[in-house]
Every structure is written in structure tokens, then in C-alpha cells.
């Protein structure tokens, strides 16, 4: 039994592109980190920020959002909507003191099994290096409320 910290990453994969990319990675027997637990949505546009926060709160050390490449969304521009929400969410998470690498968005088309596998491997190592999230200790203060971490440098949106 290894002593190494194994991060748990929840993945939100869109039915048409990234979920199929993950299928393809499996069919091609590509080996990658088993730390990502996929949840299927029809489109990344369905992903509410609350889903991400829920996952982090319930013990996930990271969240991966994977959708179609911009311009190729099955529902025209759902992935763009997801990107907008993601950008704002990242700002909020920064204020919570949650590190950049814990919540990521990647694009992988249905034929890009290798891309998705590589993204999972990369993210697993990044989150492993950061250690467990421990939402309660990191984000919630003693009375169970969120206390914003002071943002010291100008953030680029």
C-alpha cells in the first residue's frame, strides 16, 4: 500500500466530445491516471458553478471540466458559455484560497483520446503536488462560513 497521496478528481465530461474521447482512450487501451472520476453531462453548458463547488466541498481535490473545442460544440456554443462561467468561478476560487490547478477546463474532441488522457495525467500530478484540498480547513473558517483570502496582486481576468 503506497504512502503516496492519491488525489480524487471529479471530471465533468460532455456527452458528444470529451466523454467519447474518454471512451476512445479506453478503447485504445491508453493507460492514464485512474484518479479522475467522470460524470456525464450532455454539454459543458449544463455545468453550474455549484456542481464544481459541491465536488470540492464533498472531498474532491480537483475538478476537471472537459468539452468540445470552441467552434465544434454539438449545441453550437455551449462550451463558450461554460468557459465564461469557468473564468468567473476561477476568480471566486482564488479568493477562497483554492489553488489555480485544482479546477481546470480542457477541450478534447471525440477523436482526441490521447489529449484527454494527457490532461488527466498532467492534472493528477499537479494536484498531487498541492496535496489534499481539505475544504473545511482551507476555505471554511471555524464558524463554517467562507472567509475571503485577501487578493494581493492585480489579477488579470
Amino acid at each position: 500500500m503506497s504512502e503516496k497521496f492519491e488525489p480524487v478528481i471529479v471530471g465533468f465530461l460532455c456527452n458528444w466530445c470529451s466523454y467519447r474521447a474518454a471512451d476512445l482512450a479506453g478503447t485504445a487501451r491508453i493507460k492514464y491516471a485512474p484518479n479522475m472520476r467522470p460524470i456525464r453531462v450532455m454539454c459543458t453548458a449544463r455545468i453550474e458553478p455549484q456542481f464544481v463547488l459541491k465536488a470540492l466541498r464533498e472531498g474532491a481535490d480537483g475538478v476537471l471540466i472537459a468539452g468540445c473545442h470552441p467552434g465544434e460544440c454539438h449545441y453550437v456554443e455551449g462550451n463558450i458559455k461554460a468557459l465564461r462561467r469557468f473564468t468567473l468561478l476561477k476568480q471566486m476560487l482564488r479568493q477562497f484560497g483554492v489553488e489555480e490547478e485544482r479546477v481546470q477546463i480542457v477541450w478534447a474532441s471525440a477523436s482526441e483520446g490521447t489529449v484527454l488522457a494527457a490532461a488527466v495525467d498532467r492534472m493528477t500530478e499537479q494536484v498531487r503536488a498541492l496535496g489534499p484540498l481539505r475544504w473545511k480547513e482551507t476555505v471554511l473558517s471555524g464558524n463554517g462560513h467562507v472567509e475571503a483570502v485577501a487578493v494581493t496582486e492585480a489579477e488579470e481576468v
Partner: protein
Amino acid sequence: MSEKVGVYVCHCGTNIAGKVAVEEVAQWAGEQPNVEIARDYKFMCSSLGQELIEEDIKDKGLTRVVVAACSPHMHEKTFRGACQRAGLNPFLFEMANIREHDSWTTEDEDAATQKAKALVRGAIDRVVHHQPLEPLPVDINPNTLIVGGGIAGISAALELANGGHHVYMVEREPSIGGHMAQLDKTFPTLDCSACILTPRMVEVGQHDNITLLTWSEVEEVEGYLGNFTVTVRKKARYVNEELCTGCGICVEKCPKKVVDNAFEAGLGERKVIYTPFPQAVPKYPVIDTENCTYFIRGKCKACQIFCPTDAIDFEQEDEMVKFQVGNVILATGYELFDVSRIPRYGYGRLANVFTSLEFERMVNAAGPTSGKIVLRDMETQPKSVAIVHCVGSRDQNYHEYCSKVCCMYSLKFAHLVHERLPDAEVYNFYIDVRTPGKGYEEFYHRLLDEGTNFIRGRVAEITDIPRTPEEEGKLVVQAEDTLLMLQRRVPVDMVILSPAMEAYADSREVSQLFKMGCDFEGFFVERHPKLDPVATMTEGIFIAGACQGPKDIPDSVAQGAAAASRVSSLISQGTVMMEPVRASIDEEKCCGCRLCNELCPYNAIEFHEDTKVSEVITALCQGCGACVATCPSEAITGAHFTNKQVMSEIEGVLWDVITSEPVPA
């Protein structure tokens, strides 16, 4: 009331069982909340495997089913079918993908088993919150709208009409026929284009089952699969179609000629009242009001004076025609790349540089030169001709794609030059010679035998600035001959450019009208590039021909027939069941903010002015969930992907790391 979930963990031979401890997972699953029974089995998708599910549903009164096996894209339908047969609503079923997403992706058996448990638990916690859903029945109107009267549209129309279904064909030009009517000969058989096209055009024009609306455009499309309401603007021809006999006296007597930029590609002329070409269908002429003396100055009226049936009607107005159809086939075709976008090729500045369409008209026996190949002065025969491939295609500066047909028609041109000017030298400047169809490579060999000079090199410049005495008075084509590894300057008398096929400039507007998409190049997007090239992502809208991508005539005909066949199948089904994965709005909760209205890529959300709430038009909704995530009042529910379902799945997959204290939701 708690649910009774049946969990089935598949071995899939050794595909899953080789890495995941399937018996352990099944046993563990049996201990999870709401699980009535958990089994493992070698091949769940087999009939025996399915029977396991069916029997358990009946015997144990299961209310939910989870199968942990392969990807839902493989067998979700299979297991849903099993549930349905046993009397359980098929949407009370969920799959956990522990093969493609788990056993096949890792060598670590412990990790694989751990992940499998997480995915199974996620599925269990999710399925508990599933609701029974019924697919939506939609009646299919047997009429079809076909936009575009080129060879693809004609092909589709005849298939449907001969099958007994009614077709409305809308064509923007005064006559159907499309670009194929402009061509002289078609490769590789060198059939006369008009000879093979016109019988079909006539068939369309005379068919009882086809309503032909030419000189018309679609203005509005409302509705959804099986129930489209289409509004067409029938532009005024200023000719009464009831009275016109097509005798052509009006055209003869019209005193004014203008350059014909459409059919004759600017090489020939037509009258101001005209039919685009002699075999036009329908035969009714049309008045070009921009150039008509009567419309400009109120004088002339020669056409009206001489018309024997008094069919000229200067007061005629555009007519709006409205009708219902069940399906739409878009066959709007292509236009050619504007070669003046490459100033180095000198089109427009250098008189004897021609485009392919200009040359087609030139070699056409019924064209402006009666089929003689001559220079711009309409007299001199060229002694040398250069044909330039890949103008605007295979080019990062313009279009990266290969336009598929240009090599073949460039070879055709070379052949026609040899045929009509036996002593002329012909030079084809190419990158590759692409001849993928039946008889195409053989045609290329024939051209080699005919003595065509092939120079492998992209043309850098076409210039009239001579550098040597031989180049005086000629057009010099400069290209790097990559096989000889030399810069070559070839002086010729005439240059023919082979431009790429492009989507029409307004293809994006057209696609928005029909609520489907275009790709970056403006071509309509097919549902699947390999397996579904004539359907689009929008139900009931199909595409055929060059509007989907550059292609030759046989492929356009095939796609037209394919689209017609798809429509036919929908019509014969009569009623179609649509997937119930759609959004719905609780009007009690809706605050009328209308954020969702703008977001929907299918315009499927209507705002009711009277009640100030939004409503989802179920048939138009494609189930992406963008509105569900956006609604600040949480008034929108995404069927089969509700917040409760997804949140529960999140909790489920995190079963082993979930925080012990319940956190307020």
C-alpha cells in the same frame, strides 16, 4: 418511499474482470443504500444477461436498475430495452462505465476496483432520483421543402415526388438548373451537361407533386420537425404566369442589352427582359428592373406592346407564399472563389486571364462565342494556354481545403483546348493531380497522351511585364517547377484560373434561418462527418450537394437522393418519437428575466408577453442544459439531468472521501 435498485456488474469476459474485482464490487454494491439486489455476470449485454435484469424487475419489484459495464454509447439502448420489456420505464436506468473509463485505462487493479466502486455508487445515488420519462410523439407533415434547384435539389425532389410525396422547391434564380446548366461538358465522360440535366429539369417543372417557386427566397421558417411553417417571398417577375406562353417575343423585341454577369459569367450579354438560358424551367421571363428603361424612365414598354397574350404586368408585386412542411432539404450549392482576391494573378487587370466559369461559357456551343476558344477580343485564337490549379484552395491565405473537383475540370479544359485548337500548347500548373473517381485517373492518362504539359508548382505570378524578347506581348506565368527544381517563366496567350468552390457568402444567414450551423468556411455542418453526411444537428433539416462541401455531380446526386430517402423514411413513419431529454420551465418560479431566451442556440424558448414568463418549446429543445444552468430562479428543469440527479452522482462518486459531517446544501 425508498427505491429498490438492482445493480449488475459485468465481467465483459476479462475486459473488466481482468482488472476490476467484479465480485467484490457486486457484493459491496449490495450493501449500499437503496440497493435491493446486486449481481455480477459474465456478459450483461447477452440475452441471458438481459433476462437477469428482466426477471429481477418482475420478481423483486425493482424500481431502478444500474448496469456497471461498458460505455452507455455502446449498450444504454440495449439495457433500456430490457427494462422496458419488463415493464419498467427505460429512463429509470443508469449505466456506470467501468470498462472504457476504468478497466481499460489502468494496470493498477486496486485503483481500478476503487474507481469502479465510486462510479457504481455514483450511478446508484443518481438513479434513485430518476423520473420516468416518455418520448414525445411528433406527427410528420408529408410535404417537403427543398431549397435550391441545382442538380442536388432536383435529384432530391424527383426521388420524393416520384414516391408520391409533395415537394415545394424554392429557387433564387429565375430558372432551376444551378451551375450545372452553365457547364459545357462534364468529366470524365464528356457528356453534354445540358443534355443530361434538362430532361430532369423538365420532369421537375411538369411534375404534379412538385410546386416550383423560382425567382423566390425563403424569408421565414417557424416550427420544428414534422411541423414547419415556411414563408417564401415570390419576387415579382412582372410577367403574368397564367398568361405567358413562353413564346419569347418580348425578349426578341427588347431594345436593351446588358452584360450577363450571372449565367454568362460576364462574358456574354442578355436582354433586360430575359430567361437565363433557352431551356430554362419555368419558361417565364423576368424583368431586370435595375436596367429596364421603363422602370428607370417610364419609357419603352416594347415587351408589353408586342406580347401576344398581354402577359406583361408592370404593376406586379412580390407575393408572400406560406405553407406547411414536415422536413427541409437545403441544396443551395456553391459559388466560386473571387479570384481578384489574388492580385498577383492579374484577373481584371490582364485581359486574357479567365475564370473557369468564363471558360465554360466560352466553350459552350450555345455560349457567347458559339464554342470557339478565343481571347478577350472575341477573335484571336490562342496558341498557348495555361491552366492554373488550386486558386484560393489548398492555401493558408484563403481556403485550406482542397476543392475536390478543380483538378478534374482543369483536365477537362486541357482536353477541350486540345480538341478545338489542335496546335495549341497547354500547360497545367498543379500541386497534385487529384483524380479519385471512376474513370478519373484514366482521364488524366488520356490528357498525358494528348501532350499536355504538366508543371508541378504553385503559380507565383501572372504578369505581362516581359523579361526576354519571347515574353513580349504574352502573359507570363511564373512558377517554381518543383520537379525540375527551377523557376520557370512560361509565356502563353491565355490563362484559365481554376478557383475553389466556396459556400455562398450568405450561407450563415441561411443556416440561422433554419437553425442549423455552418463551419468556419461557411459550409453547412453535417450531423456526423462519416456516418451521417446529409443530416444536420437540427431534426428535420437535411443538406445535400455542394452546400455541405465541395463535390462533383455524382456525389451531389447521391446526397440529394440520400436526403430524400431520409425524409421519405420519416414520412412513412408518420409519427416520430423524440428523445425526452429536454428542458422545461416552471412558470411559478419563472421571474421573467429572459436570460434564457437569448442563450438558447435553437431559439427554443419563447417569452409570453401576457403572462411575463418564458416557456420552452419542447420540440425545438435539444437538451443541452445551458438554460438550466443559467436560470437564477432555478425555474428550469433539465429532464434526466436535474440538479438533484447530478448532485447525487457527485456525492456518489466521492463516497470514499466524502466529508463526514453533512454540509448544508
